[in-house]
């Protein structure tokens, strides 16, 4: 789909114009600040921000940042080095001043001139970085620096106030004066702690004062950081409320979609040919889906460069039919091609733009379609909603090898805007259920009298995990995927047991499970004089259980998708050994959310163990974290059960 290439620029500079500091007035440190050795408000912290000030005036294209930091431990010294990235020719950074103040009050000014370093440069833009490091920093020092940022008059630049930093902030003050030169509304989206409020005065100046802001959370299975950190996003808009924005901007978006996926005689003829013989809408939709899946998806291969397009006398695709003719396109192109194909055979179908859940959470209060942009690949995140058999079926034709009727987890359980019969509406996609994402691991292992084992494991995957390996194979090739799969195996097999992938089955298929066949060998059993002990299952090493570290939680747990894991292992016992004890069957549950069951049976010289875990949730709020952690701790411990064999030959 044609899109504004300047987005490339935006992607390139993401994360660049960063915590530069600017202080309006350098205040002398207080005796308490100088003497501080630890901060009771941030126990154990390596450093704290004493003050953070950021003032932006979009009328004079100017921003000033001022920072004061107290270094409390060796680690805190790292804050003495400041890297501030910026887009050359748009921004300049100047008037950098800084100093280090020791706890005895002695002052060491920044005398070394800040360096300007190249980050990257291309035909279209150049990103530079100002780097400086404050001198003579020791534990107990106060670091102070200020910086000014300027941008060209032709730019309007409403700020995002990063209220939450990586370190505790005692006091922060933000101001923003909006530009007079752009009409419309100045909107802001606050994600702030209770009691904190952005104020606007009659002169159009916004201010925020906050105190005691904890360090930003970094938690295992956390939601995207930008969705949970305290911040205020300002932007200019032609709309004053979200209803109007999503209605009118949505209409424009839908019109663009319809233009791209519009009727085309040749495409319609081809579509009719593809669905020939299909009796139902679903059968037609599947045939068209397979046809689109067979095309080159450049998200996973390679996008043609300008030079190449010119050489091939190709132009950027403007319509779905162009994609069809080129047999190649980006994920959003292919999604809209599929939309066009469905429509051309008479199936009602709609486009839906969603936020990639790996990157963010859709927020209707941000008036921007940029929320639907995949920053990694510079494409729009598009799924297709088809009416099949009277039901909405969500499809993900832009994700090569995504099973028909399922979504990539990045597009599942995600918010966005969709077309409807009457126009557009904000909506959510369904999640990936535990029935969609199934991993089955079976192994038949022959145990020798010395405890060594040999045999073959078969691992079948469906849903997101299958899609992950298939996408990797597209991007990196089968050999590299095997290498990475073997790395993954190392993590799930116990020490001493070695597995190396023999081959994949179904690596390049869309609508079947992916199977990996893995010969296994190594030392699994441990011996005493009379007994041999075998782990309950060969697939669960001790090292891969989540939620070990944190007893409490600040943010929700986001496990991306629900899943089912089924293990079945047959141990053929060595001669001279018999089962003495099998682990008792066990069940653990997280009510409404997950269940774990184990069962073992012995028949003649074979012991068969089953381990099943079904998790039917994606997100759990922090309030329920304790139960979740408890469940996983029980599961981790239960996985350590052993089979006890007795030596029968004396």
């Amino acid at each position, binding site marked *: 789909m044609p899109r504004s290439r300047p987005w490339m620029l935006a992607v390139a500079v993401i994360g660049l*114009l960063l915590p530069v500091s600017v202080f309006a007035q350098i205040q002398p440190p207080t005796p308490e600040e100088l003497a501080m050795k630890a901060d009771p408000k941030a126990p154990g912290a390596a450093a704290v921000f004493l003050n953070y000030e950021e003032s932006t005036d979009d009328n004079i294209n100017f921003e000033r940042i001022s920072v004061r930091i107290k270094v409390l431990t060796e680690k805190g010294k790292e804050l003495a080095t400041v890297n501030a990235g910026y887009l050359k020719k748009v921004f300049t950074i100047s008037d950098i001043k800084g100093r280090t103040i020791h706890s005895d009050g002695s002052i060491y000014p920044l005398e070394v001139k800040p360096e300007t370093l190249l980050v990257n440069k291309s035909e279209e833009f150049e990103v530079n970085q100002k780097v400086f490091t404050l*001198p003579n920093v020791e534990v107990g020092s106060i670091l102070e620096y200020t910086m000014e940022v300027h941008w060209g008059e032709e730019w309007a630049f409403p700020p995002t106030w990063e209220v939450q930093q990586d370190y505790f902030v005692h006091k922060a003050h933000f101001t923003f004066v909006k530009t007079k030169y752009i009409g419309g509304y100045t909107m802001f989206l606050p994600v702030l702690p209770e009691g904190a409020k952005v104020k606007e005065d009659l002169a159009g100046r916004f201010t925020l004062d906050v105190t005691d802001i904890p360090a930003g959370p970094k938690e295992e299975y956390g939601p995207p950081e930008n969705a949970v950190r305290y911040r205020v996003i300002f932007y200019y808009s032609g709309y004053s409320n979200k209803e109007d924005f999503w209605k009118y901007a949505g209409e424009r978006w839908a019109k663009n979609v319809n233009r791209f996926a519009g009727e085309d005689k040749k495409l319609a003829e081809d579509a009719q040919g593809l669905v020939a013989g299909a009796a139902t809408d679903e059968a037609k939709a599947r045939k068209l889906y397979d046809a689109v899946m067979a095309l080159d998806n450049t998200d996973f291969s390679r996008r043609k460069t300008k030079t190449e397009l010119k050489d091939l006398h190709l132009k950027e695709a403007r319509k779905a039919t162009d994609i069809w003719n080129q047999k190649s396109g980006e994920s959003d192109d292919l999604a809209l091609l599929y939309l066009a194909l469905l429509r051309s055979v008479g199936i009602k179908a709609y486009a839906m733009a969603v936020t990639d859940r790996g990157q963010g959470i859709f927020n209707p209060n941000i008036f921007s379609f940029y929320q639907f942009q995949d920053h990694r690949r510079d494409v729009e995140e598009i799924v297709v909603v088809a009416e099949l058999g009277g039901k909405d079926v969500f499809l993900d034709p832009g994700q090569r090898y995504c099973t028909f009727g399922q979504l990539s987890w990045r597009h599942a359980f995600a918010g966005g805007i969709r077309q409807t019969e009457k126009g557009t509406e904000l909506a959510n996609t369904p999640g990936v259920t535990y029935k969609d994402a199934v991993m089955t691991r079976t192994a038949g292992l022959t145990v020798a009298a010395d405890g060594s084992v040999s045999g073959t494991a078969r691992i079948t995957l469906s849903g997101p995990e299958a899609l992950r390996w298939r996408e990797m194979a597209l991007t990196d090739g089968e050999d590299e995927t095997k290498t990475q799969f073997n790395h993954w195996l190392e993590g799930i097999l116990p020490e001493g047991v070695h597995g190396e992938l023999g081959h994949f089955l179904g690596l390049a298929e869309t609508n079947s499970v992916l199977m990996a066949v893995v010969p296994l060998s190594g030392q699994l059993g441990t011996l005493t004089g009379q007994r041999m002990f075998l782990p309950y299952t060969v697939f669960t090493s001790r090292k891969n259980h989540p939620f070990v570290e944190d007893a409490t939680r600040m943010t929700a747990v986001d496990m991306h998708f629900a899943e089912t894991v089924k293990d079945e292992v047959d141990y053929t016992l060595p001669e001279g050994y018999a089962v003495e004890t099998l682990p008792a069957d066990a069940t653990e549950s997280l009510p409404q959310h997950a269940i774990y069951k184990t069962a073992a049976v012995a028949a003649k010289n074979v012991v068969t163990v089953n381990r099943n875990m079904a998790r039917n949730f994606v997100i759990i709020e922090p309030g329920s974290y304790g139960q979740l952690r408890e469940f996983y701790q029980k599961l981790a411990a239960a996985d350590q059960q052993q089979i006890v064999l007795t030596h029968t030959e004396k």
Partner: protein
Amino acid sequence: MLNRRVEWAVAVGMLAAPLMLRADNHSLFSSKDKGPVPDWGLTAAKTATPARVGTAGSVLLYSETVVTVDEQGHAVERERTVRRILKPQGREDGVCVAWYEEGTRINLLRGWTITGDGRQLQALEPDIGEFGDTQDAIMLSTERTRVARPPGVDPGAVVVCESESTFPTYIHEMNWRVQHDSPVVTESLEVDLPAGRHHAETWRGWAAVKAAEVHPGHFRWQVDNVPGLDLRLIPSVPAWRAMNGRMTVQWGDAAVEGTEAQWHAIGAWMEQLEAHKPDPTAEITAKAQALVAGAPDFYTKLSRISEYVQRDFRYFIVTRGIGGLQAHPAEQIYRNRYGDCKDKSTITISLLQAVGVTAHYVFVDTDRGVISPENPSLVGNHMITAIEVPEGEHDARLRSVVTGRSGKRYLIFDPTNQRTPLGVLPAYLQGGYGGLAAGGDSGLIALPVLEATANGTERKGKFTLAADGTLAGLVVTVHTGPVGGELRYLIKETDEKQRHDEIEHRLGEEIPGVTLESFKFVEPEHFDQPIELDYTVTARQYGRAMGALFLVRPHVVGELAAAFDNKPRTLPIELEQSGHWHEVISIALPDGFGVDELPDGANVETDFASYRSSYKVDGRTLEYERDFTVKQVLLSAERAGDFRRLESAIVADERATAVLKKQ
């Protein structure tokens, strides 16, 4: 983290006033470089893909490097490569790259693709970018990389690259990488020297090839059919750079006969390069004298200075041109209290000099085996310090001592490692080599592998096992030498929560379901004192009732096994560090249970390591003890059988189960 500020700025800015952001300082591509694929490229592109390429994503069909040296010894390097892309992951190899930094330049960078269907595509201005060396937050580097991405790089395509760039004027050697990640069909190096200039060549990890003298002073080496080197799935293997074949040609002061003489010349050159950098100022002298005032002995004198440098000088790299090799003046380092490894060595040498102790630079590599005696060169990535030990000084705390060819003894010390004490060496340096820059003693020195007692952990765990299987107890660990240094790094680099998470995470990998109840570091002020970490844990279901049996794993925590596999081994085995680990675990058994059977214990003795463990019951207490000593850091591939036997025994012992029965 997404910086919406920039997003919006761009978005709004584009609406308000579309702006061309063409970077206009200087173009990355010159129209004079536009042209078809050169004949050499077309010819090489016809080379057949070798039958055995393994899992490689691409194959280098042809590589030709020509280094032309002028009368002043300044060099220009021209490189031509032709590479066939075999698999999708090979696309990342399909780029043409050239580097430059302050004082050097790129004269030419061109790249083409010959697509599978025979079309020729050249990388033009939109396909060329340049990148700074800004990935590392603790580095200020002026090095730049220019990258040309020829279009159409798909499996089956051939990528042709040509570049020309100048050497820094102070570099008089060419290090030729003979072996790559991907296989090579044919590659050559040519060095064209002015009349009368000598050269010396050495090889490492590859059989030497005799040069052809194409013209007088113009030498050519050619190597064919070089396999790719992929170490990713080989456990316990040395670093890639320590394993790949390479060759070095010297044409400067080090172009002399014999490797020993070359190493001496390199050391002398390094000494000259850093001359006067450590000269102490009055301020430095005063500080040094204050530090050593009242020091009772030589060791204390040194350690006061070494700990001062380790603690008070931040690690921050500033590299600008020759700054990649040459230190800043001690005065500047002292003023800023930061610097990189060269600077830290410089300030150490300076402070020592101020109190009458002589010290020198030693360039090393942080990966053992990268610097090797048979290949004199500047290859290396780190600088450390050699401190002259006076005659008659034989303090047992000075362990990392080497003897120069003059008979002088040098204490080897790494001031950049901010926690490993004076007297010992970080594990990554032991068993490697370094280039000493010390007058007549300049040359290669072998860095010692310290005796096992210089490093390791003593662990004592006292637990109580409840009848419901819950294990609870206290573990006291005492760490010495480099292992203690690593723990000190953990304290230095983390805050309290991160430390808690790190410790609990490590424990959780060994004891599923564990809860870290408390932990405490006892960190003495001086680095040469052992550091202690004590913690209490609770693990539910650690003991497991199974019918009449109750199973418990006596080894609770502290895995020692290294990674190994059962495949044939052709590469050396990396043991990482010498040391001694001793562990005593006692578990008070629940009432009503007695021991039915204990594991046998392990006993493996080799010349490079020994491992012993034992199990016993003392009253109501199950006791487990083990002792592990590693004496070497690197084994030849032939020792793979012994290595596997050792590691298998450790794994089995760590998993071993004791059987209790209800009485």
